[in-house]
């Protein structure tokens, strides 16, 4: 005979003002199997928990029902209280009288009746609860960081410096990301590469970091603490152990006209190339789609010239498998090209460029060695128009959000242009100025007051070309929205920050959520910004949403701290609410007939086939088997099983049936 204790919480006014808790407690005292039934103002408080503890001791309870808020709030609290008295915590359950009752109904008899029903259902369930033990899984103390931009670099260094191992993968030939493409950064005008490259070198040299560049994630299986990652190392066609980084091959390559991705199409590179001089690792790769040898079998100049014999044309992609305990996603973002804008020329005007392209023109290592020149004819532009909000905050173009960084980098671009071309004319068309960081507003004021950048509030309706100049038609909304026409030498569009191509596929590979713009979703926008809804996988940087360098670095360190917290234990405990296939004595062994519908139905791939063998090795029966490490306790298999051979611990068929029957009686 059961000895259940029932504890009805008023939750202050939350439940008490709508439900007659005293009546519920009195009614439930009469339920068969209930040994103790009280109500109290705040069950989660210390005195409230003491009530439970004392009742367990005095009344020798073998089950507890706390009727209060949602189990998501306080189930761990009450289970801990029970465990302290030596009761298996899984014999304690909660009935939700708040979210399921008092918060959704008006005060009245019907509401109190419902509360009584909820409690009595849970009593029936708990009568059939069995003691369960949490499952322990080991933790692999290696982190996989996907993406080698500043976010990935920071996260890797933080984790590695704490003594844990990191595998950092980057799909480009070099780490550095977009930050390596920037000339100077706001609000300090620090040289971007000067603050980035020391960290890049640190990553390459760190004993705890294994760096794979030109590599991508092939697949990710497993669960928190126990992931299995397969990484595709794309064939570089270079033997990195032999290559000295001398650069003779890149000079020798006769194909000089391929547009350089690093220079945003404004410069060129060969088919064998290092993306930029400060690349880490400073070793080339061969772009097989452009290389003459791979297209026609001829040339081989790089092979001939290489003093170290490091060129290996027959190198294949290599897939390596690594066990990791957690993943940090730092894949960054992209910006729309100028072809995104129908009213600005569909990308056909060479002198209409986007922000990243202008960075390359400003950069000392860029295609014009830091001189601002028009891509069309190489002359120095005397009049530049900068257009903020190009594509952002634009539902007509499908981008509703603000890209956050453009107001700042536009001010920066205008300032740097004025510093380089003293008699140049810079005009910025803007809608608002979003300069919310430390020193940010002062930076924008400097552009306006000291560098005399013209700020005009209004958007540009159209840009077209006439006689080699760009005609910009905007408006000054602070002067009655009068049309303003400017004949400019060059236009820089602060284009919208967007997710990287391939983000959707990557998110699906890792089973993490993403939004309609294919930015990865955080677990909670306010209080869990660097976690995903998938345990063990963390996010940092612009892959979650466009952001600047300080926010990115902050998030990267935050994600690293989550990883380190995970790695601080040798074992993880998992809730034992998992499915189990029944076993019984020979010759039946199990009522499972081996149809394996459960295996097909399982969304987590947690069910496999197990052969039951006789002593001589003969296979007697093949039945389903649940991997306790992968099972998430969703119960789909239980619903599918025709022979009722699989059941869910903590939510068995018998328990659920009892609840329903209690409600109907």
């Amino acid at each position, binding site marked *: 005979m059961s000895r259940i204790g029932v504890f009805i919480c008023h939750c202050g006014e939350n439940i008490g003002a709508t439900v007659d808790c005293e009546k519920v407690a009195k009614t439930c005292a009469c339920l068969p199997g209930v040994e103790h039934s009280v109500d109290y103002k705040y069950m989660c408080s210390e005195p409230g928990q003491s009530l439970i503890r004392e009742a367990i001791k005095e009344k020798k309870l073998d089950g507890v029902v706390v009727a209060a808020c949602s189990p998501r709030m306080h189930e761990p609290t009450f289970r801990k209280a029970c465990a302290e008295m030596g009761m298996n915590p899984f014999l304690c359950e909660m009935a939700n009288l708040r979210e399921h009752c008092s918060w959704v109904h008006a005060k009245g008899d019907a509401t109190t009746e419902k509360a009584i029903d909820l409690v009595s259902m849970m009593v029936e369930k708990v009568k059939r609860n069995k003691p369960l033990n949490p499952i322990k899984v080991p933790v692999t103390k290696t982190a996989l960081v996907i993406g080698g931009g500043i976010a990935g670099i920071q996260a890797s260094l933080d984790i590695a410096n704490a003594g844990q191992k990191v595998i950092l993968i980057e799909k480009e030939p070099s780490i550095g990301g977009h930050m390596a493409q920037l000339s100077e950064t706001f609000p300090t005008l620090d040289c971007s590469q000067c603050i980035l490259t020391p960290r890049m070198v640190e990553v390459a040299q760190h004993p705890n970091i294994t760096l794979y560049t030109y590599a991508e994630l092939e697949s990710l299986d497993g669960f928190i603490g126990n992931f299995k990652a397969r990484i595709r190392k794309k064939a570089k066609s270079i033997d990195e152990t032999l290559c000295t980084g001398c650069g003779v091959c890149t000079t020798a390559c006769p194909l000089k006209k391929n547009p350089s991705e690093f220079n945003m199409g404004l410069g060129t590179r060969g088919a064998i190339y290092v993306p930029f001089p400060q690349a880490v690792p400073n070793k080339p790769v061969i772009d097989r789609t452009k290389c003459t040898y791979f297209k026609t079998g001829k040339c081989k100049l790089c092979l001939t010239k290489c003093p170290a014999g490091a060129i290996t044309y027959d190198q294949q992609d290599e897939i390596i498998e690594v066990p990791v305990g957690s993943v940090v996603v730092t894949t960054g973002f992209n910006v729309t090209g100028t072809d995104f804008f129908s*009213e600005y020329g569909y990308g056909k005007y060479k002198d209409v460029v986007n922000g990243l392209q202008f960075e390359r023109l400003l950069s000392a290592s860029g295609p014009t060695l830091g001189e601002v020149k028009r891509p069309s004819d190489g002359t120095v532009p005397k009049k530049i128009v900068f257009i903020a*909000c190009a594509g952002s*905050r*634009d*539902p*007509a*173009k499908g981008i509703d959000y603000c890209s956050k960084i453009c107001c700042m980098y536009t001010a920066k671009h205008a300032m740097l242009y004025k510093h380089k071309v003293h008699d140049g004319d810079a005009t910025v068309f803007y*809608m608002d100025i979003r300069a919310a960081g430390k020193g940010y507003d002062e930076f924008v004021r400097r552009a306006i007051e000291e560098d005399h950048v013209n700020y005009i*509030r*209004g*958007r*540009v*309706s*159209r840009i077209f070309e006439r006689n080699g100049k760009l005609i910009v*038609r*905007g*408006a*000054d*909304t602070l002067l*009655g*929205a*009068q*049309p*303003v026409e400017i004949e400019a030498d060059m236009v820089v569009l602060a284009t919208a920050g967007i997710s990287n191509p391939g983000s959707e596929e990557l998110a699906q590979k890792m089973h993490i959520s993403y939004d309609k713009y294919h930015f990865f979703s955080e677990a909670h926008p306010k209080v869990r910004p660097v976690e995903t809804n998938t345990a063990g996988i963390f996010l940092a940087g612009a892959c979650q949403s466009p952001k600047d360098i300080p926010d990115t670095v902050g998030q990267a360190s935050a994600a690293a701290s989550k990883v380190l917290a995970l790695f601080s234990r040798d074992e993880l405990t998992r809730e034992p609410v998992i499915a189990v296939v029944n076993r019984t004595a020979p010759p039946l062994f199990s009522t499972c007939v081996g149809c394996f519908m459960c295996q097909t139905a399982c969304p987590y791939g947690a069910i496999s086939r197990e052969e039951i063998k006789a002593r001589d090795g003969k296979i007697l029966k093949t039945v389903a088997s649940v991997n306790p490490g992968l099972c998430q306790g969703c119960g789909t298999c239980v619903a599918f099983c025709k022979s009722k051979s699989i059941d869910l611990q903590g939510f068995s068929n018998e328990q659920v049936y009892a609840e329903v029957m209690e409600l109907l009686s």
Partner: protein
Amino acid sequence: MLQSSHHEDPSLAGLVWTKTGISVERCYQCGKCSAGCPAASEMDLTPSVVLRHLQTRDADSEKKVLSSYSIWLCLACQTCIARCPMEVDLPKVMDVLRIESLHRHLVHPKAKDIVSFHTSFINTIKRFGRLWEIGLIGEYKVRTGHFLQDVAVAPVMFLKGKLSLVPELHRKFVRKIFAAKERA
């Protein structure tokens, strides 16, 4: 189209919403419409300023809009809505404002010619079912007093066979429509 609950909004913006479903709040005053409007330099209130006046729901602002020259200078070229980031259907808003301006007898003095033109056009259709240029111009000149307008052009048009001296009589094609209009 985003529609907020406008519960009994007696303002001009409310009228716009009732007639068209357009919510003037959607405009964030970026000025792109004014920047691209071919007639903006002639207008007293450029397109985005017209919307700003509606957003205030202030009686004086509303009067300013309805008695503006701008709403009659609008060419209905659709350039504004083609480029508006918030997809505000300004041409439709202009139609509502024009009709309301007539209704409240607030037409800008400079716009009287344009209103006369439209009225003459409609009357010509009512009488003949199709456009008869001489009928249109004739009534327009009587209404506006611009008797010498295009006197040089008319003979050339006639000689080129593009101007009929006599109208075609197709009044019955539109009789029912105009009758229904009178009843309403």
